[in-house]
């Protein structure tokens, strides 16, 4: 069930019509949220429900056991981690690792053929598995660290873990931020509901108008459907992809936050205009914030962070970035994406060049780094990505033909850049900021975005982050 589908519209109308009734008491609220969320998730394939329930029960039981037998809490943490990482390994990485092992054995002259011995169920990637697994793991880790008291009510736990707005594509909400909110009866006033609606509409606009229209150009280019293949074209494609993936994912996050807001819950911001970053480090504090902070708190800092010296800090950061790449997908291209970010971040740390260079130049350099890395993220293989990088420095002709063939995506790309520019100006200038908050600009902006989401929508496409 996609947020931008009629099915979801019907689902949401029914859900919110009954929400005030079930929101009165804790148990009815948790039951209602859990049932609705399981319905939402089971709409793709009801068999996946066993996975989320199984994975959730492991963490629910582990956390309770940690509280009851504190002396053995380390063993229960391992039980939870093995359960979660195990299910991720089976469903997401088994084929990838099997192909690597096969390739290694072929190298020494032995044919293992592990890929063909993987059971067929393990070849299906359940929607959003990486999101709910990470969310579930953060719960047990926080209980282990003593930062969170486990809930004894299984419905309370599942209403947190499976809460439909963020279930399949984040943001990754921590238990310590949401379990408490779910325990209270939260009511909303008109202003909060208006903010919720605004987030949903702007999210829908980002997804259907920007991401889906830019996707036409990006897909055509990466699938080799066009004869244009020069440097200028690929720079345009990379910029288009940068905004496509940003608006696709940020749009989903905005809609998730808006839906939660309508229920009275607060999710933290997941994107903060990452392309306005003034260093790569700054980029990572603005991009997919819930995931980058998850990796910081549960991977980078436990590894040692920057406490164990400068060089070790760089090694830990690189490991974290590569794992983050692997989290996105079981392919070498994603690992390369993480490694490229690690490389540029390491240079940034070593030289500190972003602090001394003019901001304008830094922004451009950060852009180039991010775009080159996105190329590996989007490409079908490392060799395709390498070929494209080589073409980037080639000739810059054929703009007329690019314009002729991709007039609409170029139109939406220009529109997106202008919107980002207006946000940049709004942030720098308080008087512009005040102007935007006025009702006579705020209300028409929502109305126009809503109409545009219908009448300027691109060809319908899945959310990119669903595959992760």
């Amino acid at each position, binding site marked *: 069930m996609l947020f931008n589908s009629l099915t979801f519209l019907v689902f949401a109308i029914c859900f919110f019509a009954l929400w005030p009734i079930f929101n009165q008491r804790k148990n009815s609220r948790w039951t209602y949220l859990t049932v609705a969320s399981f319905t939402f998730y089971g709409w793709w394939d009801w068999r996946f429900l066993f996975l989320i329930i199984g994975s959730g029960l492991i963490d629910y039981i582990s956390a309770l056991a940690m509280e009851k037998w504190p002396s053995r809490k380390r063993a229960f943490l391992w039980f939870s981690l093995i359960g979660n990482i195990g299910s991720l390994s089976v469903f997401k990485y088994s084929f990838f690792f099997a192909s690597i092992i096969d390739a290694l054995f072929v190298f020494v002259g032995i044919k293992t053929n592990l890929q063909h011995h993987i059971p067929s169920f393990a070849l299906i990637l359940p929607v959003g598995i990486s999101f709910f697994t990470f969310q579930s793991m953060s719960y047990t880790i926080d209980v282990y660290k003593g930062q969170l008291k486990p809930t004894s009510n299984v419905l309370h736990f599942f209403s947190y873990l499976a809460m439909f707005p963020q279930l399949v594509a984040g943001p990754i909400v921590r238990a310590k931020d949401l379990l408490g909110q779910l325990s209270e009866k939260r009511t909303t006033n008109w202003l909060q509901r208006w903010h919720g609606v605004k987030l949903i509409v702007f999210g829908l606009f980002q997804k259907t108008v920007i991401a889906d229209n830019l996707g*036409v150009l990006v897909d*055509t280019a990466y699938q080799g*459907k066009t*004869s244009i293949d020069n440097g200028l074209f690929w720079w345009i494609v990379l910029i288009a992809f940068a905004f496509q993936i940003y608006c696709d994912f940020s749009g989903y996050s905005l809609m998730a936050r808006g839906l939660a807001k309508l229920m009275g819950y607060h999710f933290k911001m997941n994107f903060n205009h990452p392309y306005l970053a003034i260093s790569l480090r700054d980029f990572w504090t603005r991009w997919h914030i819930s995931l980058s902070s998850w990796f910081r708190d549960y991977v980078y800092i436990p590894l040692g962070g920057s406490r164990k010296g400068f060089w070790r800090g760089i090694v830990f950061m690189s490991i974290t970035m590569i794992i983050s790449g692997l989290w996105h997908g079981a392919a070498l291209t994603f690992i390369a994406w993480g490694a490229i970010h690690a490389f540029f971040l390491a240079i940034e740390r070593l030289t500190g060049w972003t602090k001394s260079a003019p901001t304008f130049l830094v922004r451009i350099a950060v852009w180039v780094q991010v775009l080159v890395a996105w190329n590996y993220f989007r490409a079908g293989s490392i060799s395709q990505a390498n070929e494209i990088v080589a073409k980037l420095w080639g000739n810059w002709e054929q703009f*007329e*033909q690019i314009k*002729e*063939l991709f*007039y*609409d995506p170029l*139109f*939406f790309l220009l529109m997106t850049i202008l919107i980002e520019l207006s946000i940049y100006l709004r942030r720098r200038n308080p008087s512009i900021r005040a102007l935007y908050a006025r009702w006579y600009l705020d*209300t*028409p902006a*929502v*109305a*126009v975005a*809503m*109409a545009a989401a*219908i*009448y*300027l*929508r*691109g*060809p319908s496409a899945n959310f990119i982050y669903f595959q992760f």
Partner: protein
Amino acid sequence: MSIMLFFVLAMSEPEYEVEELTLNEFWIHKTFQKNEYDLVVIGDSRVYRGISPKHLAKESGLRVFNLGYSSGGMAEPLFSIAERSIATSVKPVILLGITPHSLTPVGLSNKQLNRLMGEEHPAEIDSESSGMMRWFEPYRPSDYLKPRSDSSKFDEFNHYYRNGWCASHSPKDDPARTLPIYRKNFAGNTVDSAAYESLTKRVKIWTANGISVFAFRVPSTEQMEVLEDSLSGFDASFLKNQLILSGAKWLDFNSKDFRSYDGSHLHFESAIEFSERLGKMIHAELSNQSPREN
């Protein structure tokens, strides 16, 4: 305010999307789509390259689809697909894009279409909206803002659109390019006189069922017409009379008015112009008729 915007945008009925497809998607979609149209144009490659449904629709006010196939012939199963596509229209129109080759045994065998019909295809072929959903068809900025292209700046291209049209361009016209191919095509493969009979018979059934039928010889070049008339055994005036007697309307065009890049197929700019002219003529003819009662 949103409701007002929706109302204004919905009432102005945006044009159908003419999204570009890959070659394979183009043929599969053309063959298996199940949308409802008012007008379908049938024929061979001169039809699928020479008639833009978007521009024909703009002038005629009808929902148009191009059912031209490579070496398509005036026979089954093309007739059945055409009938199915306009079955629910209150103003159904079949447009016959006649070429001599479409009446030869090779053309009549509809090899490509028969092969396509046996091919596997996705259960759900993307469809265009009908009924109330048409009010929610998206707008494309290029339809309103983009100036008409100056093709002299482009390399050779073929753009395959969802409405069945292939826009073709070659930077240098070579009106003699396909003449030898056609000379070869007609060797032992001339117009079958039975084809006239079967076509006029079908046209009689269509017109009796309230379907308006228009026919025309698809423009190419004068040289090509001379070659076709001398080698194919095609008798244009005989067919024209037979079709008129069966209830069809014949539309005359002069190949001199259009540009062919290879001697057979229209350049996309000419195809647009030709489609607009066709649309205007059909609109004028239909304005004098009353709609079919369903």
